[in-house]
């Protein structure tokens, strides 16, 4: 719109009459400005907090989880999520407790059912000793945040093998939430490399890279992922599969980033500060690394944030279809594979809970990325 219409204080400021607040804006670095703008985005801040909490949960999974991921509880197959209570007819108790479960056969449907026995309480204790593990792979300990004294506690129920869903979701977070980060990091390297040289050198190199991107993008992603992951050797170790899937995801994921980097480089490479660097004899790779990349890093970070949810959605979908990660690796997608059948789902709808975490995680990253993108745009309102 017409700049006269809404007077813009930034444009008519003059250093000598700067107010304190204005002076701060005037001399702030790009990252400062971005942070100030980002702070105003309440939703993005909340999303950021959610993400931090989720990653802390994944890092401290062994401590937070009452059981190991592969621990089977005999006689506790398809246990529904248990209610944690503070009061019942016997009165209020500061210490939370659950009721013990008793298995029964429903004579009408001939299905096994668990019913709570309200006559006894199983108190929940904190910092209890259980199975031992190594925190961060360093400290051997057997302390768990909580546990039921003389019974079992399954906050999110159990699966077909009697494994605690709550513990598995925590352990699954380690895989699911890291695959996005690693995949995006690989995409970033590929995208910066190909997008950078494509935009910087132009000409034939640019043409070839653009065609490659075009071809890769015209494959519908899921069928292409399907084909590539079918190509992973079946006898690959779980870690090998994890790496393989990550590489496959980033092989296609880099194209969007590559295009963006190319566009930015094209726009910036003829700016005065780049020409100045070139005239003063700085080498080409150095110009790219120390002048071009920093100047659009904020945009790249915003795009990366938006690319992470794509990765986890892809991993989850592939694992769900049985061509991604496979047991014994625990990821949210692998867990959801158990929920593929409608009949199972009718009996144990809590098997969908990992999906809920996928949605929360992806939603949080989308909001965060949206906030970052706004903050990274110096010409936004």
């Amino acid at each position, binding site marked *: *719109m*017409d*700049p*006269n*219409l*809404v*007077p*813009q*204080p930034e*444009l*008519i*400021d*003059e250093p000598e*009459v700067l*107010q304190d607040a*204005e002076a701060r804006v005037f001399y702030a670095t790009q990252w400062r400005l971005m942070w100030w703008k980002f702070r105003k985005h309440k939703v993005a801040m909340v999303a950021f907090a959610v993400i931090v909490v989720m990653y802390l949960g994944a890092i401290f999974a062994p401590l937070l989880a009452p059981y190991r991921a592969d621990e089977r509880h005999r006689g506790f197959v398809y246990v529904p999520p248990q209610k944690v209570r503070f009061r019942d007819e016997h009165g209020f108790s500061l210490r939370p407790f659950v009721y013990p479960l008793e298995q029964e056969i429903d004579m009408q449907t001939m299905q096994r059912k668990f019913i709570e026995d309200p006559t006894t309480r199983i108190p929940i204790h904190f910092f209890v000793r259980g199975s031992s593990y190594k925190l961060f792979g360093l400290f051997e300990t057997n302390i768990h945040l909580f546990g039921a004294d003389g019974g079992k506690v399954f906050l999110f129920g159990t699966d077909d093998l009697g494994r605690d869903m709550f513990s598995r979701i925590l352990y699954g977070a380690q895989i699911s939430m890291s695959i996005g980060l690693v995949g995006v990091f690989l995409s970033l390297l590929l995208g910066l490399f190909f997008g950078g040289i494509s935009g910087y050198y132009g000409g034939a190199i640019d043409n070839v890279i653009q065609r490659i991107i075009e071809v890769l993008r015209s494959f519908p992603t899921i069928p292409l992922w399907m084909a590539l992951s079918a190509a992973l050797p079946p006898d690959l170790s779980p870690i090998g599969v994890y790496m393989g899937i990550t590489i496959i995801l980033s092989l296609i994921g880099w194209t969007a980033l590559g295009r963006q980097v190319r566009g930015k480089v094209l726009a910036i490479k003829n700016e005065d500060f780049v020409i100045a660097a070139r005239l003063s004899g700085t080498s080409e790779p150095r110009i790219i690394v120390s002048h071009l990349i920093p100047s659009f890093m904020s945009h790249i970070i915003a795009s990366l944030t938006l690319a992470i949810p794509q990765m986890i959605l892809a991993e989850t979908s592939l694992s769900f279809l049985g061509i991604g990660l496979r047991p014994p690796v625990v990821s949210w997608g692998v867990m959801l594979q158990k929920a593929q059948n409608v009949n199972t789902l009718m009996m144990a709808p809590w098997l969908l809970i990992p999906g809920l975490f996928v949605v929360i995680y992806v939603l949080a990253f989308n909001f965060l990325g949206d906030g970052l993108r706004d903050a990274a745009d110096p010409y936004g309102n």
Partner: protein
Amino acid sequence: MKVGVLMDKMDQDHILEVQDLTVKFLMDEGTVHAVNGVSFVVPAGKSVGIVGESGCGKTVSSYSITQLLPKSARLTGRILFRERDGQVTNITNLTPDGKEMRRIRGKEIAMIFQEPMSSLSPVHTICNQLSEAMLQFQGMTKRQARTRAVELLQLVGIPYAERRVDEYPFQLSGGMRQRVMIAMALSRNPRVLIADEPTTALDVTLQAQVLRLIQDMQNEFNLSLVLITHDLGVVAHMVDHVCIMYMGQIVESGPVKEIYDDPKHPYTKGLMNSIPKLRGRRGERVVPISGSVPSAYAVQTGCPFCERCPERSKRCTQGIPQRVKIGSEHYVCCHLYQSGKEEQDVINA
């Protein structure tokens, strides 16, 4: 002020009167006071120039007249318009995009904008955009409107109008587009034409042509003209009256000759000195006004110009100067001319 008493009354000869107009913008960062108590009149068939630098509120004032300001704008004061039947309408009482306001925009007060490039839709033909108002307000058929559109294009000096009328704006040059904008304004047979920096976005060589065209059209259609510009030179031979605006206020107003020959306000003097003169003496320098416009967020307690004023004194920071009459139609807002008789004549000008 006695303005409140004069309910919707205006001089018989005037077609437009702006009385004590203030416009504020409510923004996240605070309130921007864009226009602070502006008053001016447009006599029927005459032309008035509003001059000031970027951000002084001249565009906001002109947008207020046709109520085209964004929703965040808060407007007080009165804008009176004399209808064809002699009735007076207070435009500030009308709903911005209501039927009455649209009638005034479509038939009475037309505008030409700063940027002819982006003021036309890129995906509609010129014929389509030119005939829009004629179809809506003059009950023409499509064929009639098209014929009229070609006539108008010829009138504003577009060659091959018959062919051009079916082209798209991006196929025309900047000057041609501004001519189309003028034709579009004329298509409504308006009585008032507001031109908001019509030549700013054009090449210097085109500026004179477009200004000449506006002047010709004013004579041909007997228009009353409000010309908004930052260029005192443009105003000199285009208008009868000049208002000099600074920081949302009119600091000086009067007949164009008087202002040129005998500027009173230090800001006006500064503006005069900053015009390069073609026949200036050798060695004479263009003198810029020192400093720049202070933040529009600030609330003023003294004369808005005092920080940059070469003739400032103590009292300048202690009160906003009142408007003083210093000639038959010459007014100035400056402490230099306030001799305790501020109340003398603050109503109409």
